[in-house]
């Protein structure tokens, strides 16, 4: 019997079994299932073999639909095949799933169940995806814990091979897929025993082969399709028994005995919860607690949800049950009940007809990983005990609109005293989560204790708050919910003390560890008064360390993970101190050893220094602090922001009732301005004497935290004392004042502006026109300056020469303070787009980084100008942004055409001059647009009083008479892979849309998986062995249509070129495609000097700059303009600046060399081709001579 214990998460547990028991694995990234594919890819790249001694082939596809197709094909030709997915990904597989089931083909798809996007996208867990595929004919097996994911992955594989019914094996996204837990790893021998050769050979025998040809996929007609469809019935009837038999066999091998429905509770229970997924284990914990206290309750855990065996279901129920709550983690609006509820009701109706059966009520819980706790389970039982319990209730929220929610006591806790519960508040970049993952392994694998870890991150990519929840105890831990009563809390960032109540969950007598820039004697007075009061009231043991100081002295920089981890072990007492330190050091060697001895040495040093620098704080018995918690948003924020956004920012979104929310997912724009995250240690300071007013700093600022204005000197009368101003240098603004102002609380401190600044002091060249300085002393004066600056009127857009960077940067950005990574390479393009066209832009955004920092709550960056105009934005799906945007264009054009028609019809009442003005407006530049807006204003005034249908119709769409700019935005995952078909169709349509591809050459948002844009030789997830194929030339494909404007730009290499391309693309009355080099954290670069990467990319020829303008062809000129010079450096000199390329030289040096030689050939060939295209003779007809 296998007893090997490992501490892993659900995705890894599944990945191990899936890789061992399959031969072909088709993958595509989607959160939260991507990690399963990554594990499979890494295993195959490392040469790991499956049970039968071959290395499975792992193939990344262009979409989940593609993955499903490849799986279908591999299955049909006899390979054991699998895939992993979630949410929309699973929905894209539906057509093939029908086929795979219809052909009775054995396979298991592993699903990290996740919400399907509705009023909003959510990456978090619920069952709406797996419930959406109920009709495909697949068996559905649910896992409730990390151990079960591993066990059921194998059980499903065995059962599908025997039953021929394909299986969905699902578990809760994040809660189970990402929960780290100590489990018993299945040994290969168990897997072999569960998968006898006969089953494999039967699968092979069903395969298509020209040596014994068959035909499948026939087309059938009304005479036979129906009967033929019924022919599979025996297999579905047999399936539940096969699964149970498989579970029984598994029990014999491992000692873990599962059933299709597992009952836990009082033998004479009268109240029962039916539930599946991680909620089942929580209910299990709650039921055990309640039964021990005499309550007659029970839980029925659903494991095999499809085929739903009524017989097994009824048999599993205690006969004493009087009322059942069927709990669904999904919502089917308009249905008579959610799916599990409907199945339970049906089970009784079918099994017992009109006879007596328990009362069944339905409840909904946990949508999008909403917390589901033992307290809520108790609440459900309490509800069932009422004479008239609610049905179709919700639990875990307050529904004050349709009053579906039931009450529960949030203070109720089932957590036993012998479980250590620790919470850690960290910053993404400080390594807190990594340290905690290590700590779990140290404790769970080094002692008989069980361990569990779950990690919560906020929605931003820079300056992220991470909260780690760790439990250790003598028994397997079923508490799949966040810790509410901690014995230990650590705050790894001192600034959090003002922002979050980090002590809230700490129990009386608990231990608190704080990283503070203060010693044990001064720290007390530096924390907020409310924190002091809690510490005193709860008699908390309080420790402090200046971890950043230790980090500096030990070369750890801001990675204080090892330091804080050491302190945790030293004071929490979970392990004897010496033993713990030895274990940490062993773990350091294991984790960092392969990164070199120096890294190990640094970490060892940090461990030793941590112990020497941690102190217990002896605090007085009175609260003396004058510091109070910061408001989440300023008082002047609008009401919506105060009521809703502020609560989410403060981490209290769970408390908001249903009535607080828009009913259809519509939110105001421009809300990031209220968040003021203060995440920068250092911010840029303007040296006005040195500044040459080039505007480059504002151009490159990823967060629009650097603004420029020119204005009348008289406005300075009211300026704060430290407000800086100089005379404007441009002749167009002669006599006016010029100011570069930093938004001090919104800057992320990335330093890109300082890096790009070309102006240096004549006397001390290290001083530039922008220099970084500590934010804290500047926060107050610069905030005052920023507030004053905001009140200065924006520049008159009609006076700006938008083709010059220094003047274009005077335009107000309508994309600001996003949650993108510090130093992001994408956002400067979006900001530029909004500066130039934002007041009339309609944006269709593909899912990805840009949709997350563009549209993730609590605050969103698209903003409005003083007139209330700005980009309007929506995200449809990952794959359909181009089509979605084309829809905008068609709709706008139709309405604009209708408006023009109505204007003509109403000429007699509107007046000929206005009508002609409106209809003949050229709208080519800012002045034209302004003039047209003025005409529309007059039009609206005239229409106001009119009651005719035509007048009222025209009033509703009059704004369509002003030119609208449609922007379709997405990353390379969208443009090159999943959305390519749509993109191709849309550019072929000839319609006036602008497609902006933010090309990071990798799936950035999901953590760096290879796309078809990934260059040859780069290492990425799903391409661990180095990308074999060269980068797809998307621009060339688009150029082949002849009528598509195409530009390849890199703002860090040539900003004026980028600007020109944006202006030309938008001006072109047809489809435009801008492919924008976007440096990215996933390249493994120093983000502060990332523009150097852009320059090197262009200088090496890896990223050519060009513009293909069909307008030129119409004028008889060559449309192709190659704007970058011949390569100055070999491509390797660019590539080996970046870890993504360098990594292969550290894993497979010979392969790296081979691929780099090919990459150089790619560059050379592409350059020759482009030189030819740009140099060839061209006639007016656009044909080659």
């Amino acid at each position, binding site marked *: 019997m296998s007893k090997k214990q490992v501490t892993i998460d659900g995705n890894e547990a599944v990945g191990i079994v899936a890789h061992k028991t399959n031969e072909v694995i088709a993958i595509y990234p989607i959160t939260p299932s991507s990690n399963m594919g990554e594990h499979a890819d890494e295993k195959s790249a490392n040469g790991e073999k499956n049970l039968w001694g071959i290395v499975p082939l792992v193939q990344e596809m262009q979409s989940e639909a593609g993955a499903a197709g490849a799986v279908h094909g591999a299955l049909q030709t006899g390979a054991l095949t699998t895939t992993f997915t979630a949410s929309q990904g699973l929905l894209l597989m539906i057509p093939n799933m029908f086929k795979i089931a219809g052909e009775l083909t054995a396979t298991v798809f592993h699903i990290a169940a996740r919400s399907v996007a509705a009023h909003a996208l959510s990456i978090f867990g619920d069952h709406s995806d797996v419930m959406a595929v109920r009709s495909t004919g697949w068996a559905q097996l649910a896992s409730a814990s990390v151990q079960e994911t591993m066990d059921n992955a194998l059980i499903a594989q065995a059962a599908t091979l025997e039953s021929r019914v394909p299986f969905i094996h699902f578990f809760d996204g994040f809660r189970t897929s990402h929960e780290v837990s100590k489990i018993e790893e299945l040994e290969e021998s168990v897997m072999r025993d569960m998968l006898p050769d006969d089953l494999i050979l039967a699968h092979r025998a069903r395969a298509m082969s020209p040596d014994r040809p068959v035909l499948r996929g026939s087309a059938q007609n009304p005479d036979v399709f129906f009967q033929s469809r019924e022919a599979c019935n025996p297999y579905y009837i047999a399936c539940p028994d096969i699964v149970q038999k498989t579970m029984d066999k598994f029990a014999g091998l491992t000692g873990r005995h599962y059933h299709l429905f597992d009952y836990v509770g009082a033998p004479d229970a009268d109240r029962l919860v039916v539930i599946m997924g991680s909620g089942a284990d929580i209910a299990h914990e709650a039921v055990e607690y309640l039964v021990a206290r005499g309550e007659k309750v029970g839980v029925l855990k659903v494991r095999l949800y499809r085929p739903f065996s009524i017989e097994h279901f009824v048999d599993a129920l205690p006969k004493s049950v009087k009322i059942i709550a069927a709990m669904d983690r999904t919502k089917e609006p308009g249905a008579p009940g959610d799916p599990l509820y409907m199945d339970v009701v049906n089970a009784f109706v079918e099994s017992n007809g009109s006879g007596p059966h328990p009362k069944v009520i339905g409840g909904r819980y946990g949508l999008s990983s909403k917390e589901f706790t033992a307290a809520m389970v108790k609440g459900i039982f309490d509800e069932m005990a009422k004479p008239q319990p609610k049905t179709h209730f919700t639990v875990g929220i307050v529904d004050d609109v349709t009053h579906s929610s039931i009450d529960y006591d949030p203070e109720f806790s089932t957590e036993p005293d012998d479980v250590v519960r620790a919470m850690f508040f960290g910053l993404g970049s400080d390594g807190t989560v990594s340290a905690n993952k290590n700590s779990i392994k140290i404790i769970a694998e080094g002692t008989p204790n069980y361990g569990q870890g779950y990690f919560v991150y906020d929605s931003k990519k820079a300056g992220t708050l991470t909260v780690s929840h760790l439990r250790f105890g003598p028994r397997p831990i079923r508490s799949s919910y966040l810790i509410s009563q901690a014995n230990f809390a650590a705050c790894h960032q001192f600034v959090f003390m003002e922002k979050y109540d980090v002590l809230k969950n700490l129990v009386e007598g608990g231990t608190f560890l704080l990283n503070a820039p203060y010693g044990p004697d001064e720290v007390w007075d530096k924390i907020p008064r409310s924190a002091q009061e809690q510490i005193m009231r709860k008699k908390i043991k309080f420790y402090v360390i200046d971890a950043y100081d230790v980090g500096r002295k030990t070369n750890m920089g801001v990675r204080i993970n090892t330091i804080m981890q050491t302190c945790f072990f030293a004071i929490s007492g979970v392990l004897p101190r010496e033993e713990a330190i030895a274990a940490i050091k062993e773990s350091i060697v294991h984790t960092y050893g392969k990164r070199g001895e*120096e890294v190990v040495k640094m970490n060892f040093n940090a461990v030793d220094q941590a112990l020497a620098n941690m102190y217990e704080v002896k605090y007085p018995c009175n609260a003396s602090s004058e510091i109070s918690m910061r408001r989440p948003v300023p008082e002047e924020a609008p009401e919506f922001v105060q009521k809703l956004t502020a609560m989410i920012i403060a981490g209290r979104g769970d408390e908001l009732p249903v009535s607080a929310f828009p009913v259809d997912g519509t939110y105001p724009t421009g809300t990031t301005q209220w968040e003021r995250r203060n995440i920068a240690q250092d911010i840029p300071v303007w040296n006005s004497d040195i500044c040459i007013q080039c505007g480059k700093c504002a151009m490159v600022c990823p967060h629009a935290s650097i603004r420029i204005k020119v204005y009348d000197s008289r406005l300075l009368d009211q300026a704060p004392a430290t407000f800086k101003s100089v005379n404007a240098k441009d002749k167009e603004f002669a006599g006016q004042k010029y100011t570069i102002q930093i938004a001090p609380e919104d800057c992320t401190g990335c330093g890109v502006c300082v890096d790009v600044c070309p102006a240096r002091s004549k006397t001390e060249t290290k001083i530039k026109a922008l220099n970084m300085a500590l934010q804290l002393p500047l926060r107050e004066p610069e905030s005052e300056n920023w507030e004053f600056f905001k009140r200065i009127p924006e520049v008159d857009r009609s006076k700006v020469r938008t083709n010059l960077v220094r003047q274009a940067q005077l335009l107000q950005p309508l994309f600001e303070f996003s949650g993108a990574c510090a130093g992001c390479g994408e956002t400067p393009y979006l900001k530029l787009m909004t500066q130039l066209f934002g007041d009339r832009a309609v944006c269709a955004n593909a899912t990805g980084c840009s949709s997350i920092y563009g549209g993730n709550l609590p605050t969103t960056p698209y903003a409005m100008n003083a007139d209330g105009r700005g980009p309007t934005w929506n995200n449809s799906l990952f794959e359909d942004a181009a089509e979605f945007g084309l829809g905008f264009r068609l709709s706008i054009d139709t309405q604009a055409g209708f408006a023009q028609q109505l204007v003509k019809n109403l000429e007699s009442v509107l007046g000929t001059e206005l009508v002609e003005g409106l209809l003949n407006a050229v709208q080519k530049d800012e002045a034209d647009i302004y003039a047209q807006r003025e005409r529309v204003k007059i039009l609206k005034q005239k229409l106001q009083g009119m009651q005719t249908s035509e007048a009222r119709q025209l009033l509703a769409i009059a704004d369509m008479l002003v030119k609208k700019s449609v922007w379709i935005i997405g990353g390379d995952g969208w443009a090159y892979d999943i959305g390519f078909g749509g993109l191709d169709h849309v550019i072929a349509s000839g319609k006036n849309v602008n497609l902006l591809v933010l090309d990071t050459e990798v799936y950035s948002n999901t*953590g760096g998986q290879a796309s078809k844009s990934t260059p040859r030789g780069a290492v990425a997830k799903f391409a661990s062995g180095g990308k074999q194929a060269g980068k797809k030339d998307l621009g060339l494909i688009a150029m082949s249509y002849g009528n598509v404007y195409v530009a390849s730009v890199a703002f860090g290499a040539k900003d004026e070129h980028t600007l020109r391309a944006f202006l030309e693309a938008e001006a072109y009355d047809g489809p435009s495609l801008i492919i924008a080099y976007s440096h990215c954290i996933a390249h493994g670069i120093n983000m502060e000097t990332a523009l150097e990467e852009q320059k090197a990319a262009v200088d090496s020829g890896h990223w050519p700059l060009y513009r293909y303008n069909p307008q030129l062809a119409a004028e008889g000129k060559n449309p192709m303009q190659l704007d970058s010079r011949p390569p100055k450096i070999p491509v390797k000199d660019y590539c080996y600046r970046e870890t993504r390329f360098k*990594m292969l030289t550290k894993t497979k040096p010979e392969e790296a060399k081979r691929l780099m030689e090919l990459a150089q050939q790619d560059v050379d060939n592409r350059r020759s081709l482009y030189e030819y295209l740009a140099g060839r003779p061209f006639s007016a007809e656009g044909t080659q001579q």
Partner: protein
Amino acid sequence: MDLTTTYMGLKLKNPLVPSASTLSEKIDNLRKMEDSGAAAVVCYSLFEEEIIQESRELNDRLNQGTESFFEATSYFPEPDKLLIGPDFYLEHIRKAKAAVGIPIIGSLNGCSEGGWVQYAKLIQDAGAVALELNIYFMSTDAASQSEQIERVYLEILKAVKAQVTIPVAVKLSPFFSAMASMAKRLEQAGADGLVLFNRFYQPDIDLEALEVVPNVLLSTPQALRLPLRWIGILNGRVGISLAATSGIHNADDVLKLIMAGADVTMLCSALFQKGVGHLTTVLNEMTRWMEEHEYESIKQMKGSLSQRSSANPAAFERANYMKALRTFRG
């Protein structure tokens, strides 16, 4: 003609040894060197800073952005093994040894007393027959005393010697107040040879960018005067091997340095400029000159114009400086 020489106990077929440079990064170049007549080769250097820097940088990049965001808890695959630190270098030494028959001399470059000296043993194990220890130290701290700095040199040497059994040469900079004494102390600390001199690459200023930039300038023939002087002085004053490096471009340069007392002469810039095949030319011209001037062997001419052997020992000293300036007429 007997061109053989002995360097740190190694019997070499002639005194031409390509010095440590990127030329030796390619095995093909090593083969060309052998074919063109090189008697041995000093492999490119394994740098202390490079190992530390590489390790730290990789660690930083792999950590960057991790565990900060639900959808992307990391950005790179985690390979089982990474070739970090000396692995590449050692592999290269092994390959070089397998590819050519001439002796391979390893080169280790650093400036602190740290764990890096253990790489000396690994280089020996990889097949190097000797080691060149390049101690490239820039003292910019106004508070540090020359005695302290000299002690560091000696300690590093001792630490390396304790690791290996192969001979170790120390490559020095010319910036010692008491060069002769330093040479003697290194000999006493166990050095088997001295390589004179290390070229300190000086930074340059980019006027457009207003930045100080690194800039490698190849050596000119004039650069050989410095090693020529010190080899001439040290010949006989120390009992260990002397290698000349810097500014050796042609046969005349080689002959001069051997006459001053060098056991081997190391070429680099000339090979970058004229190709590795230039070694053959140098060798042929050397031989021709020796024949024309009726020399029988390298051994015969070695040290014949050292300070100790020359008719005008003052030419190596301050008196020469005075005379040179006085007689210079532009």
